[in-house]
């Protein structure tokens, strides 16, 4: 299944040891995972053109092989509502280490989940589903299963989350689109089975899940060190 384009992205990222976000998103899209509309702007005017095309408000994120945790460098700006805010952010990002452009992206609403994978020494590829966002390591609410996943595994992962009610509809809120979440997890599990040997771990965090759809809003792919 790993097509040439996916392999190209992986080999281009080898030196950094991880895949920068726009490339990671491209890879995920090639594997049939839903990603928001986005563009990788390397100049101010490109950023403006992309943001207008996507439609304000947009999210902007710094692209830099030196910055793994973007939030910690204030490298993420959400809700930018016009050219001025966008360009101001671009100016600020330019001063960050290793600046290689700005990711301009559609705002996606929804509950923030994490979908992850790692190659476990004893069990091989395993898949994680949990409550995501920047608080992911505070809540530590997650479930793990050995890949490849079956549909019943996804149901049991959701059932095993402490925050299960948030996904299934809490106090009158509509449940998130569980069918979409299931499709996403199954596609992700298939991809991970193919990527074993190339990657060490993948974090899709957050995956934004709403009653309408589930979309991968950010992704980080850590490559295998020896590969």
């Amino acid at each position: 299944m790993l097509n040439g384009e996916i392999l190209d992205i992986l080999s281009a990222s080898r030196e950094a040891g991880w895949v920068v976000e726009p490339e990671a998103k491209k890879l995920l899209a090639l594997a049939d995972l839903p990603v928001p509309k986005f563009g990788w702007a390397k100049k101010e005017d490109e950023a403006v053109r992309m943001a207008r095309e996507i439609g304000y408000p947009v999210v902007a994120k710094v692209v830099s092989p030196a910055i793994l945790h973007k939030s910690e460098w204030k490298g993420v700006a959400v809700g930018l509502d016009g050219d001025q805010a966008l360009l101001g952010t671009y100016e600020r990002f330019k001063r960050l280490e290793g600046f290689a452009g700005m990711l301009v992206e559609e705002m996606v609403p929804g509950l923030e989940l994490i979908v992850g994978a790692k190659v476990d020494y004893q069990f091989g590829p395993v898949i994680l589903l949990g409550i995501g966002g920047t608080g992911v390591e505070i809540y530590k609410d997650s479930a793990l299963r050995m890949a490849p996943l079956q549909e019943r595994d996804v149901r049991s992962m959701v059932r095993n989350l402490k925050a299960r009610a948030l996904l299934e509809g809490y106090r009158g809120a509509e449940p998130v689109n569980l069918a979409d979440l299931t499709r996403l997890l199954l596609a992700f599990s298939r991809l991970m089975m193919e990527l074993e040997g190339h990657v060490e771990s993948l974090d899709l965090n957050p995956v934004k899940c709403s009653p309408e759809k589930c979309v991968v809003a950010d992704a980080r792919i850590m490559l295998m060190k020896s590969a």
Partner: protein
Amino acid sequence: MNLGTLFEPRAMAVVGVSHTNDRHPANVVFNKNHLRYPVRVYPVNPYGGELQGEKVYGRVSDIPEPVDLAVIAVRAEQVPDVLSDCIHAGVGGATVISGGFAESGRKDLQDRLVALARESDFPFVGPNCLGIYSPEHVDTFFLPNERIVRPQPGGVAMVSQSGGILVDQMVKFAGEGVGMSRAVSIGNKALVRELDLLAYLVEDPETKVIAFYVEGFGRNEGREFVRAAGRSPKPVVVMKAGKSPGGSRAVTSHTASLGGDYKVFSEVLAQHGVVEAKNESELVSFCESLSCYRQGIEGRVGIISGSGGHGAMAVDVCAGHGLAVEPLTETVQNGMRESVSKSVRDIASFGNPIDLTGSAVDDDFVHAATILSRAAEVDCILLLLLPYLPGCTMDLGARLSQVHRREGKPMVAYVPHVEKYRMLIEGFELNNVPVSPSIEGAVLMVEAMRRCRPC
């Protein structure tokens, strides 16, 4: 790999017996088996001579009949030669008791054993282990008879990376009346590993439940293990040591940080319906329960007691284990009310937990258990029996077991374990209904059945 002859050998060689040291492991193994088990035992030592009036052979290949099992207890450097001799003599397999291999920096020596054995498809357990205890057949543990506690023969097989944990667990099984079919200490597990023993024990007619004490698996070995265990028609119970995160490996992703080694281990086991025992008391309760019941349940519990307090305690423990104790339907409650004696009808409560009160007699328990067995809303019955109630007799265990036999719904019992209630307890146990000396233990027995299905 044919492991059968290791567990039921007709002839065995004990290599390394000493002429001067009666406590030498080989001498202990010789003494334990010679004339005590049906197996014919041949002592081996290069100097020959006699041991307790028996001829000592210089080499395994000198023994005048085919040998099924060689127990090797010589110095590490001598083991490859002895192993070659065994292979040359057509021995069925070996347990290598000797230490001094990978565990003390001599991986090279261990690799030589593995290479020799692989080449000839020769199975050996160890090195650095106690080997095999197979009730009524053979015992290669180098622990003197008077020092160890052996459970009665029964359905539980246990495979352990640690000999000490295994021997300890045998004491605990014996204490709870849990019978064992096989016990294997695999030590460095250089050749015969958990997967090989799982395959053997799944086919072994003596074994009903397969328990493992595991410290860790090799690369991707856990994946193969859970798959095989998930397919096993017999329940597989695993106790894992090393749950705390080891070392200070840098973690660069949230997934790696949230999904530590133990969390992965635990959740992947559950995914495949492999029952994880978190500690020794869980291991005993789980094995006892699953040697009676191998089918999984959802965990909807009906509780019958003669004391409100016991019922309430059990509900709390069930809740802590995520087991449901839901109110019974009116129909079931009414049926039960009508079935019990007049004297308890108006004072008992039938909601779940069912409290038949201190006035209940044997018949009341039997009737309530029968009706609950036929109620689709519960899939397991928890009996809390107080033998000191004036209306209860020592027959109650056997009578309630008959209800289980007739109706087929899994049943577990709590009975205080003191000698004077022995007959009541045996009434259950001899009829394959597990009994625990604590409410917590009885609930764990229910929990075992629930964990026995993939989550």
